């Protein structure tokens, strides 16, 4: 097998050559108006906005910082500007059922006008109605009616009294009623006088009194009817007088709103209510609020009652151009659906239609509503409320208590409004997939997925577009222009951020931050252009701000607290490489992996897993090792070893399979009893056929081992084995590249376990000959013989065998 050659320095970092750019600074570049690297997302966005069908709402999925918000907002704003302004919506009192306010749809800008007109009408009525009721005409007519009623009463009693007088009977007022008594010469008879009367007279008097009492009873029973009749006539008079004051004022409004039948109908209802409640206007000046012992109380005047006539402009589009684009930053249930507010009156919470408040759905109705999926899902019942509104295509304001049937106090049931808008939810891909999987309504309501990628292809053409994007961002943020060297360095960093030499990140937030920080350092240095030095400094400064933990980890290795060898050889011990992600900063560091073998039942024990410090992917990688051993070596014999593998001095959970090849190297070394070079570190996953597979974080891992070697002194022997498939991802730091260029450090692309073990041990791996045997003096032969020996031992002991440590050389 040909030895694996270390990678050339050029392969370690695909650096952008500034000379490829024709411009000198970004001032020479035009703004980039198109969206870079998101062709699929833009197409989906166009489709989602263009299609006007129920359920075609959009879910924008992508990583934060990819420009989802700004792109969607810009695109929506562009589309919305060309669309019609939606109507205004108002709530008005339902005079028949006050707890069910009516919704009024009005042309945009009309809501506020109607509100003002109604307020003016109320002001006018406050003056006009008391005036007509204070008029002499009204007072005279009312007095006349009251007098008539009174006369009717009095006449009845007077007639009865006169009739009684004619029979020498007096009508006497008693403490709680009336009574008849016989009298003579104007005085009521005393009992003695009465006793002296002849029986016939007594009889006559009693009969007369009985008849008079009947008549009095009849009169008293008629009084309520007379009073009702009198009240009815007074009410008729009031209505007539009120109508005289109201009619012409409302007629003027009828002319103004002649083309709006709902408003006309409401004006009719207002007229009717005003006529029926003219008293409210007559005493309107008594209204308002008073404060009693700190409690605000509505007085029983117009303050309360005239609210019924007001207009609650829920949605006002008088200043809106085109369709609305609303972004709701706090999408709670009430913030989306609207809310019913309450005011305290005498310790009780009361509400009315004027206390209905619009939600984001109201404001965006007829346009577009942008929401953050995570925020919606975090708010209690906001997601359910949103779905219900979208499903029913109706917007019904209700409190959360009502929606959940938690409260049964009297509240409002506002008339629902038709809902016609596009909701654009923006969220991470995981949320999209979880919702799609677990919420059956989601797919019905959000049929359009706008999938934002996080990288784009890197080639000369896209590099130039990227340069224009950098120029655009710099101008937008009023940053210094970048010279082309700086642009090239930003491009390199854009590739590093996606850990791929052939890609560029489209997470523009990170690039924007880099530009801002470079601008800062350029200005600090008194430059008028951002240069490559400024970009480098921005990158280094950012790393420095974040790498305290990395330094600490390296320090404990250098001080020997964590044992990592970078020189010499050891059996069953390999330098693995791990990556630690802390926020947005990731770094690599070496980790010692050791293996031990003995006679056993054919198991590979992962100590990390045994103590539950390994994730499932890591465990899977270890189990693959057993499969590899069983398949490659002594396949016709039982695997009679017990191998234990461990990440030394790790105290947290290990996850990922990038150490699988490392563990296999340690295992092979332990089985073959062949030492491994400690000047090398290894990363890469492996399959059951011994092929090395790509891993993540390759740059950080190499740099992590490199930093340790630099600290201890580069020997020229040190290096890292990486999966060959990861070469395309290499975007290593300049100092690593320089060390490789000077032959002081090496990066080996490995495709198989055999290649790797040869590099690590310096001994050929060995390939089976025509007899199926591994050649002498090869790693594979030593491993196979060891396994056969263990198998023989197991047979000798009588399987199953366990417990005895198997020592020494292979049989």
């Amino acid at each position, binding site marked *: 097998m040909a030895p694996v050659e270390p990678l050339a320095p050029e392969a370690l970092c695909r650096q952008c050559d500034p000379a490829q750019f024709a411009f000198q600074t970004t001032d020479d570049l035009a703004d980039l108006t198109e969206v870079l690297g998101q062709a699929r997302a833009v197409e989906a966005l166009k489709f989602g906005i263009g299609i006007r069908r129920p359920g075609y709402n959009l879910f924008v999925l992508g990583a934060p910082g990819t420009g989802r918000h700004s792109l969607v907002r810009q695109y929506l704003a562009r589309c919305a500007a060309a669309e019609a302004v939606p109507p205004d919506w108002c709530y008005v009192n339902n005079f028949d059922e006050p707890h069910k306010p009516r919704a009024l749809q009005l042309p945009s800008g009309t809501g506020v006008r109607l509100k003002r007109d109604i307020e003016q009408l109320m002001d006018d009525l406050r003056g006009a109605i008391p005036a007509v009721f204070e008029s*002499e005409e009204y*007072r*005279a007519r009312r*007095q006349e009616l009251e*007098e008539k009623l*009174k006369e009717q*009463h*009095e006449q009845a*009693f*007077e007639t009865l*009294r006169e009739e009684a007088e004619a029979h020498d009977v*007096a*009508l*006497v*007022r*008693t*403490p*709680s*009623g*009336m*009574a008849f*008594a*016989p009298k003579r010469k104007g*005085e*009521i*008879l*005393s*009992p003695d006088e*009465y006793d002296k009367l002849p029986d016939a007279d007594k009889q006559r008097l*009693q009969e007369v*009194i009985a008849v008079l*009492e009947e008549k*009095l*009873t009849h*009169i*008293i*029973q008629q*009084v309520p009817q007379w009073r009702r009749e009198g009240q009815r006539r007074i009410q008729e008079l009031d209505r007539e007088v009120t109508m005289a004051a109201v009619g012409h004022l409302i007629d003027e409004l009828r002319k103004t709103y002649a083309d709006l039948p709902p408003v006309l109908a409401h004006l009719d209802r207002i007229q009717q209510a005003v006529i029926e409640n003219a008293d409210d206007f007559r005493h309107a000046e008594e209204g308002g609020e008073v404060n009693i012992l700190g409690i605000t109380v509505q007085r029983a005047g117009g303050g309360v009652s005239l609210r019924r006539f007001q207009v609650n402009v829920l949605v006002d589009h008088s200043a809106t151009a085109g369709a609305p684009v609303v972004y709701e930053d706090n999408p709670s249930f009430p913030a989306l659906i609207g809310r019913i507010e309450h005011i305290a009156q005498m310790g009780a919470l009361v509400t009315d239609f004027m206390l209905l408040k619009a939600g984001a759905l109201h404001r965006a109705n007829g346009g577009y509503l942008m929401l953050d999926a995570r925020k919606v899902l975090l708010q209690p019942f906001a997601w359910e409320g949103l779905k219900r509104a979208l499903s029913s295509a109706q917007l019904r304001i209700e409190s959360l208590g009502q929606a959940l049937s938690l409260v049964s106090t009297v509240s409002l049931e506002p008339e629902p409004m038709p809902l016609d808008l596009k909701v654009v939810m923006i969220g991470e891909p995981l949320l999209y997939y979880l919702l799609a999987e677990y919420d059956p309504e989601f797919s019905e309501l959000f049929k359009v997925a706008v999938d934002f990628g996080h990288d784009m292809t890197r080639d000369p053409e896209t590099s130039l577009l990227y340069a224009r994007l950098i120029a655009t961002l710099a101008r937008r943020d009023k940053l210094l222009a970048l010279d082309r060297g700086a642009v090239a360095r930003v491009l390199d960093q854009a590739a590093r951020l996606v850990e791929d030499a052939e890609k560029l990140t489209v997470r523009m937030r990170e690039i924007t931050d880099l530009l801002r920080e470079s601008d800062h350092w350029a200005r600090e240095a008194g430059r008028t252009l951002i240069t490559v030095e400024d970009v480098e400094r921005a990158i280094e400064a950012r790393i420095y701000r974040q790498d305290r933990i990395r330094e600490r980890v390296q320090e404990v290795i250098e001080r020997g607290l964590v044992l990592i060898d970078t020189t010499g050889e050891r059996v069953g011990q390999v330098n693995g490489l791990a990556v630690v992600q802390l926020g947005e900063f990731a770094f690599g560091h070496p980790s010692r992996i050791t293996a031990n073998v003995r006679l056993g039942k054919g198991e590979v024990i992962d100590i990390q897993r045994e103590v539950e410090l390994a994730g499932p992917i890591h465990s899977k990688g270890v189990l693959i090792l057993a499969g590899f051993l069983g398949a490659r070596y002594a396949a016709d014999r039982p695997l009679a070893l017990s191998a234990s593998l461990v990440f030394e001095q790790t105290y947290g959970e290990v996850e990922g399979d990038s150490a699988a090849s490392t563990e296999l190297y340690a295992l092979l070394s332990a089985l073959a009893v062949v030492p491994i070079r400690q000047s090398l570190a290894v990363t890469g996953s492996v399959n059951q056929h011994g092929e090395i597979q790509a891993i993540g974080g390759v740059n950080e891992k190499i740099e992590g081992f490199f930093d340790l070697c630099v600290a201890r002194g580069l020997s020229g022997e040190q290096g890292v084995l990486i999966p060959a498939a990861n070469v395309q991802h290499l975007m290593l730091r300049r100092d690593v590249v320089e060390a490789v260029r000077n032959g002081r450090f090496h990066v080996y692309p490995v495709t198989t376990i055999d290649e790797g073990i040869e590099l690590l041990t310096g001994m050929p791996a060995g390939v089976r000959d025509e007899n199926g045997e591994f050649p002498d003096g090869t790693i594979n032969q030593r491993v196979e013989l060891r396994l056969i020996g263990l198998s023989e031992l197991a047979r000798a002991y009588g399987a199953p065998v366990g417990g005895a440590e198997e020592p020494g050389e292979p049989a």
Partner: protein
Amino acid sequence: MSVPEPIRRVLLALDAVAQDAEAFEAASTLAARLGAELEALFVEDVDLARLAALPFARELGLSSASRRPLQHVDVERAWRVEALRARTALSQAAARHRVRWSFRVVRGEAGAALVQLAARSDLVAVTLGGAAAGSRVSRMAAVESVLQQLPCALLVRPVGVALRAPFVVLYEGTESSGHALRLATRLARNGGGEIVVLLAAADPARRALLRVQAEDMAGSVGMPIAIHALAPVDPAAAAAAIRALRPGTLLLATDSPLARAAALRQLPAAIGCSTLLVR
């Protein structure tokens, strides 16, 4: 023109029917503004006592029309209860206005009792009419016939009406109408309120004279007045004209045509305010 005697004693006439609170408030206000003593006269009408003693006596409830036997003991109890209630209300109102007061219960014929006590009073306050059915039969009906005979000033107050400003005075140039104007200035000066003088004269020259006299009388005590003309017409038309001025209290002379017996019954209700008749 003579100066009227000062009013030192106000007599509030009460009967067995429950009084409205304004009766005590108005009388106390009046007494306070005039610096007078207040005496309440509660009359236990002997006619009612006789009626209750009759073997077949029964009453009909004024609102329910139900019939129930009326016994003397019931009437006695009702008098006691009502008298106590009236006394309490009077004491509270008088205390508010810092007025000396007394309460007297008299059994007898209501009119006679009133005339007797009015002889040593300067002003009698009575409540007349009211919205209740049969009010004309009831409230102070027994004393109506004697009101014209009273030797002193008389406040006739409809049920539920307070004594309040503005004080509208019908000035006809007579001595007693002059007394009415002076009484109005005292009421306004001691408690605030506007004075409106109605000059009852058809002849412009006469009206001018009356104006001068009225202004002199009010001006002498430093009280501003507003003056309106009132052509002498029938009582109903005059009442309408007065009502248009929205009077709080109307003051007029007892010898005015408006204060005739027939009109007296109707006037306070017609104009909706208390009427103070001055001799």
